[in-house]
């Protein structure tokens, strides 16, 4: 084949493919709507993968049973967000451009969120599910998790008053979520006339907390705010109790979920408090119905429900609610109607404000390896991070 002919035929082929794709693209309206769900399937947070997957599938079935999003049945395509941010971003790009996902849900850390926002560039709606440090305001991104302003401020104020705590020790892993959370906590401590007697950030590799425990004991702290994550939180809390500190020192955390509490163990969980927008045993009708249908569907041995995995349900529900209100999936349309979108979910009724949610926050106390809700703080406002 001559070179000219080759170029010509290649061009024809490309043009034909392009034409076919346009036709396919038009045909897709009314067909299945693919939603990319980025959850940790590997890595340290992979622990939350199985439950997140189950919950997302449950949400998709519920949405489909109610007629889908914009009249289209939805299909979930999972992507691994447990990878380093750059690789997770590649996965998301493949789901978006390659698989044709038209909207995204994400339950992963803030570093991956940053990478995904850079990939999506406000061209595809993206709902970020877990609780996070707050402060984000990119277009086309909707946050259904609680921020420290919602979870830490009311619960810490109430608990400090209830237990008469004056001296506070802040300990967390060394990254932005603990540091931002503690910045807000320090304001709260100042407001209630307390004193910060120590603040420490641990590298992720640490699993021996002896030197910190000696400092906590020495400081005379009567409340410790814990922003350690996962395994670090388990190791810290176990050692904390073994030194006999649990009787007199309150422990409050905003990421001590059902799994972490199992690891801490009944023996070490005295005076552990956790603040979140969801616990598996919230006693509301919605939450109970959700937990029951979860165990009916996946069996009693299924991965534990917690605030993180359940946030995937809220993510998909929020996507549905906003898209229906906007009548489409374009970021511009969705952004313009997002404010005030209200929807119900397992954790209660929520209203969108500044692309975050006004929602109920629960303070739970550990009883053995179970949580017991001791106080509900209703309709906590997310604050406004979109100050132009």
């Amino acid at each position, binding site marked *: 084949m001559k070179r000219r002919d080759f170029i010509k035929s290649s061009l024809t082929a490309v043009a034909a493919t392009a034409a076919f794709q346009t036709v396919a693209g038009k045909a897709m309206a009314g067909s299945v709507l693919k939603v990319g769900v980025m959850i940790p399937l590997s890595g340290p947070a992979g622990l939350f993968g199985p439950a997140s997957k189950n919950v997302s599938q449950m949400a998709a079935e519920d949405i489909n049973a109610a007629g889908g999003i914009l009249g289209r049945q939805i299909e979930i395509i999972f992507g691994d967000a447990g990878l380093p941010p750059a690789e997770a971003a590649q996965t998301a790009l493949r789901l978006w451009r390659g698989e044709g996902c038209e909207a995204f849900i994400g339950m992963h850390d803030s570093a991956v969120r940053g990478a995904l926002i850079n990939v999506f560039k406000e061209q595809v709606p993206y709902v970020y599910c877990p609780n996070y440090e707050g402060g984000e305001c990119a277009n086309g991104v909707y946050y259904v998790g609680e921020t420290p302003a919602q979870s830490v401020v009311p619960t810490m104020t109430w608990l400090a008053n209830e237990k008469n705590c004056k001296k506070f020790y802040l300990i967390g892993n060394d990254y932005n979520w603990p540091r931002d959370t503690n910045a807000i906590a320090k304001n709260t401590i100042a407001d209630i006339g307390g004193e910060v007697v120590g603040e420490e950030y641990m590298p992720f590799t640490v699993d021996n907390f002896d030197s910190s425990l000696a400092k906590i004991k020495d400081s005379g702290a009567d409340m410790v705010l814990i922003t350690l994550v996962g*395994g670090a939180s388990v190791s810290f809390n*176990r050692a904390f109790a073994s030194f006999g500190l649990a009787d007199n020192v309150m422990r409050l955390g905003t990421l001590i979920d059902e799994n972490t509490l199992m690891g801490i163990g009944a023996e070490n969980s005295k005076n552990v408090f956790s603040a979140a927008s969801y616990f598996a045993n919230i006693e509301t009708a919605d939450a109970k119905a959700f937990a029951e249908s979860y165990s009916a569907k996946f069996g009693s041995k299924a991965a534990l429900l917690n605030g993180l995995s359940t946030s995937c349900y809220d993510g998909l529900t929020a996507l549905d609610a906003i898209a229906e209100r906007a009548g489409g999936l374009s970021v511009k349309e969705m952004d313009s109607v997002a404010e005030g979108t209200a929807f119900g979910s397992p954790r209660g009724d929520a209203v969108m404000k500044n692309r975050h949610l006004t929602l109920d926050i629960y303070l739970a106390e550990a009883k053995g390896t179970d949580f017991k809700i001791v106080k509900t703080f209703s309709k906590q406002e997310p604050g406004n991070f979109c100050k132009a």
Partner: protein
Amino acid sequence: MEALITFVLNFIYSSATLALIVLGLAMVFGLLGVMNMAHGEFVMLGAYSAYVVQSLGLNFIWAIPISILVCVIVGWLMEWTIIRHLYNRPFDTLLATWGVAILIRKGIEAIFSRDYKSVDQVMPGTIDILGITYPSYRLILIAIIILLFVTLFAWYQKSKTGLRIRAMVQNPGLASAVGIDTSRLSTVTFIIGVSFAGLAGVLLAPLVRVEPYIGLDYLLSSFFILIVGGLGTLEGLLIGSAVIGGSDALISTIFDKTAGYLSVLLLSILFLWLRPDGIYSRR
């Protein structure tokens, strides 16, 4: 004064537990030249044995024979199918044992899921000692570890098997020429090494978190100790544990944990650079 006593006890505790964890790895590497990347996984198997024993409602003491049984079976299988074909090929054993490590981790994950498990302490609570309050189980653990090391040291120096192992290590060819079954002895040494890892897992389980991936942490800290302490002697192992555990504890107490961890990394780099054979070298 209280702070000092707490510090000294914490230092002894962390050195003792580190020495316990690294013991099996040092045996297998020092005596057989096999870098067992699955060492941490045997610690993990020990911890899960303790968990299973407790969830069956049995006395905690049962975890020790059960973990040793598990480690002997897995260790023997591993030596028989893989390791014995790779003696004197250090890099190949490194890769092969890393593969086994992944297999064990995933196997445990498939059986128990990734959820955290909690093992109760045999002796919960604290004891008032030298004017401070200290966890009772930790003190018992320190005593057990010291006893274990003394026994092991005596056995290695005095027993016939100890003599045979030393002969095999010094000159394998000559050892087999005088009638020592070096192949069987290698198997036994490997199995004893991984069983010590399992035992460490059982003893530590009540104090640490238990999940399928904990082995990696133990492997990493073991490396640092071997680098500093050198290979092939119990003395080096104890000194390595004390240096690594001590510098971490000391720097963390004075500054913070980040500085403590940094000091461990710096020490390891300095040793690799200036004294690659460690403090206590056989050579």
